[in-house]
């Protein structure tokens, strides 16, 4: 009798396993694929570019501007969203959908989102393995850090000019990752999470390393051309330590801007750019 009960319980949990999942955020899509749920992912956000298998999936807008009609039409049994200011959970639940709201804003948030998805989709073991692997890689990067370097990460600027720059400030996910990789964010004291900064601040705080994603219009441009373009803009400021030391790194890979399970890749590359040598 207890066996029958256990059997029933097990099959119930199998039935409860979501079969048609919609993800409205790139980071959550990446977690789903990492947990081996790519096949069951029936809809992704407009901004999901990774892994390649996610690109061809039906698009449902984004968590800020979801296409509710497209989501409903996919008949999902689980919709994944992140914390948002547009009351998305209530809106989706109002049309009878099961919604899971997760937090990807910080590293602990990403790790617990992995746990939670493992539970929700009955992939506990895979989730635990993924989490352990990420934690191990992060700890390895941290253990390697021998010295600290002053760094800034630019996420915005006027195309082709060192004007209208926007940097990564404190409390953000990238700030956390840079710190773990041995970088001291020169704008850690900013009152804004993503402060608008000017060349004056860069001259005064003179970072040793600059991570450059400011020219966002170059999205998808060929890497060599992109590097050349960005570096030519910085060549006008040879008085900056990072420019003199050839430590301006033009980046245009979305691992840096998608909070998700590839954060360990980002940390390893941060380490390599900050200190040289391998981050792995």
């Amino acid at each position: 009798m207890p066996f029958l009960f256990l059997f029933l319980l097990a099959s119930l949990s199998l039935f409860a396993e979501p079969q048609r999942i919609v993800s409205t955020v790139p980071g959550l899509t990446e977690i789903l694929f990492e947990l081996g749920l790519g096949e069951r992912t029936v809809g992704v956000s407009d901004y999901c570019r990774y892994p390649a298998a996610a690109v061809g999936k039906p698009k449902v807008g984004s968590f800020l501007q979801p296409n509710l009609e497209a989501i409903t039409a996919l008949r999902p049994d689980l919709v994944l969203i992140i914390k948002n200011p547009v009351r998305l959970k209530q809106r989706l639940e109002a049309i009878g959908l099961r919604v899971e709201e997760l937090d990807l804003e910080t590293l602990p948030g990403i790790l617990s989102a992995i746990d939670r998805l493992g539970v929700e989709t009955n992939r506990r073991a895979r989730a635990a393995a993924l989490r352990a692997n990420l934690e191990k890689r992060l700890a390895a990067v941290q253990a390697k850090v021998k010295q600290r370097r002053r760094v800034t990460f630019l996420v915005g600027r006027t195309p082709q000019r060192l004007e209208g720059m926007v940097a990564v400030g404190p409390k953000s996910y990238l700030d956390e990752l840079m710190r773990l990789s041995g970088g001291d964010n020169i704008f850690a004291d900013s009152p804004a999470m993503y402060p608008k900064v000017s060349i004056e601040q860069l001259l005064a705080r003179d970072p040793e390393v600059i991570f450059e994603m400011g020219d966002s219009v170059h999205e998808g441009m060929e890497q060599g051309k992109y590097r050349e373009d960005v570096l030519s803009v910085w060549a006008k400021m040879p008085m900056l330590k990072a420019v003199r030391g050839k430590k301006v790194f033009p980046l245009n890979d979305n691992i840096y801007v998608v909070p998700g399970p590839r954060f360990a890749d980002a940390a390893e590359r941060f380490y390599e750019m900050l200190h040289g040598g391998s981050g792995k």
Partner: protein
Amino acid sequence: MSRYWSVLGASILISIAALLICPLIGPTPLDFSKIFTEGSLEAQIFWLARLPRVLLALLAGGALASAGVLFQALMRDALATPDTLGVSSGASLGAVVAICFGWADSARLGGLWTASLLGAGIVLMIVVGLSSSGRNVSSFTLLLAGITINSMCVAIMLFLQSVTSLGRSLAITRWLMGGVDAVEYRTLGLLSLFVLPAAVVLIWRSQHWNLLAVGEGWASAKGLDTRSSLRLGYAAGSILAGSVTAITGPIGFAGLIVPHALRMLIGPDHRLLLPTSFLLGGAFLAVCDAIGRTVFAPAELPVGVITALLGGPFFLWVLTSRATIKN
């Protein structure tokens, strides 16, 4: 005439004071004795970051304020601003198109600025075309046409922003926030090639705007060729607004409050109002930007935030105290 020279002299002094003092204000404390020491941090910050920025603010604020004065006179509408004719939105649209289609991607072309000026120019031609067409187009019609052009430009910008890639849409959002930043001296040189001649023409023809501000009938009765004067006025004002917007992005409010505050303080005579607006509009924007780059350092506030928050209450105070005097 002595009042004329004392008011103008005071404006020149205030403007020079802004030019001398504003570069000294900023988030980084500077040892000013080292400003002329080559290679020192003080010199780099002063010459590369602060001075160009203050010069841009002086030019931009002056251009926007004097364009505001002019448009208010030509349209005889208190709410007319440099944006009213749609020239600023034309400039913004040009920039947005450039970002969208990648004309801004090449370092050599300066595509953003060219496209922006082109956008302002196209709107300007529509406006001047309307104002000089065979039929007698009233300033009211022009005002409505400007509002329509504005809405159309905004609609196209929103459309482009929603179909372009995430990266480009971010670049557009940043550009539309507007603001004064440390530009290259070459950019300043180019901007002054547009702004200074246009401002000189405006001030030169002040008497014409005095006549037109009363009414076109009155002006032509006084022997003024109203059509060519209007055309000149709209062209010069649009060049001022368009070329500035091409560099700074949209900056609201400066073109509205500076002209009105000055009109209340020194009177409506354009011979005095135009030069003082140019001088004090510039000083006002330079001071606002000095505040914007300092209060939340190392983060900066777009200058539009300060112009509205600081200028707004002052403008309300001028409005109400003026009303009290009248009563």
